[in-house]
């Protein structure tokens, strides 16, 4: 008992630190994953699905339309829901996303919106999130640069 009394300040400090750590880690708004997981998941576009790949999925899935436009015609309405991007992390919507059975397929006609949402969800720990690319590879360069073979830089610039 005497030993415990002597240690009470030390134990008090540890308990305070422990409470702070628990409070910090229990904040739902904090990210806990390493960015490496997001970067690796985007390699070879393994986090994206085409419409064909979506049709061939064997397990359950749910398309979440986070954009302003409607879903592509080939996506069945019963397998989809609409959540505006800016409300994606509202408490109710977050719970809905967590309860989705199977893969979570993010769709927006503006691929930038789906990409940002995917990174945020990935970093929040949603391992089952994918992006639906309905219009082909958005990172394909559609133009070919035609060099001007007569162009030369001034000597002093090199």
């Amino acid at each position, binding site marked *: 008992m005497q030993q415990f009394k002597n240690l009470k300040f030390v134990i008090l400090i540890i308990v305070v630190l422990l409470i702070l750590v628990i409070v910090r880690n229990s904040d739902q708004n904090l990210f806990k994953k390493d*960015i490496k997981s997001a970067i690796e998941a985007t390699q070879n576009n393994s986090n994206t699905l085409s419409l064909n790949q979506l049709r061939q999925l064997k397990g359950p899935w749910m398309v979440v339309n986070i954009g302003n436009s409607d879903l592509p015609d080939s996506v069945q309405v019963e397998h989809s829901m609409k959540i505006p991007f800016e409300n994606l992390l509202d408490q109710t919507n977050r719970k809905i996303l967590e309860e989705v059975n199977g893969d979570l397929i993010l769709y927006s006609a503006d691929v930038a919106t789906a990409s940002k949402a995917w990174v945020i969800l990935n970093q929040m720990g949603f391992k089952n999130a994918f992006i639906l690319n309905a219009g082909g590879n958005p990172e394909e360069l559609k133009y070919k640069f035609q060099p*001007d073979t007569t162009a030369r*830089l001034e000597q002093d610039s090199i």
Partner: protein
Amino acid sequence: MDARIRYSVLLVGVGIILAFLPFDAAQTFQLKSDELLTRSASEEMYFSVDQVARAVNSEDSTVQIIDVRSVAQFRECNIPSSINIPFDDLQNPLWEATLNQKKVKNIFYGNGDQTASYAWTIVTGLGYPNNFVMKGGLNEWFSTVMLSQYSGEKITPAENARFENRLNARKAFTEINSLPDSLKTRFFNAKRLNQSKLDGGCN
């Protein structure tokens, strides 16, 4: 009680607490998720290709244009004065000093909007300030800056300024990207050397 025992108990306790904290806090998002979402939904995160063209023409030193495509794609063609930070290499600690600057705006671009948006979200999530995306990427740059033509009969001063801006950016783009690879390498090395001299670094 012996002070050594007190300190030992304290250190063990702190050690246990540290064990529960993330291993490398620098590589996890520092922003809260709702704040990151609010910034992501804002249109203020975008630069138009005309704004980027203006920055290129004026050699704006407060703007840092960042190409997040692969090294091979960057070598094929890139926006003048842009630097290449391939998206796959974004977590390399070497880039932190380049990306985490208070007075410089980072403008990310890829071929489209996807990779640049990934990069923007990660860099903003890490807590680095002043990040933007060039809306539409290099595809938009080609259609607006490289291939734009005026077809009306009269041109207003504002339209004239816009087309002149595009024309100058187009010339710079064509000039730099038309160089043979050997000259391009020399040009980029010279540019890097000049930059390190300006930064006060060594060769």
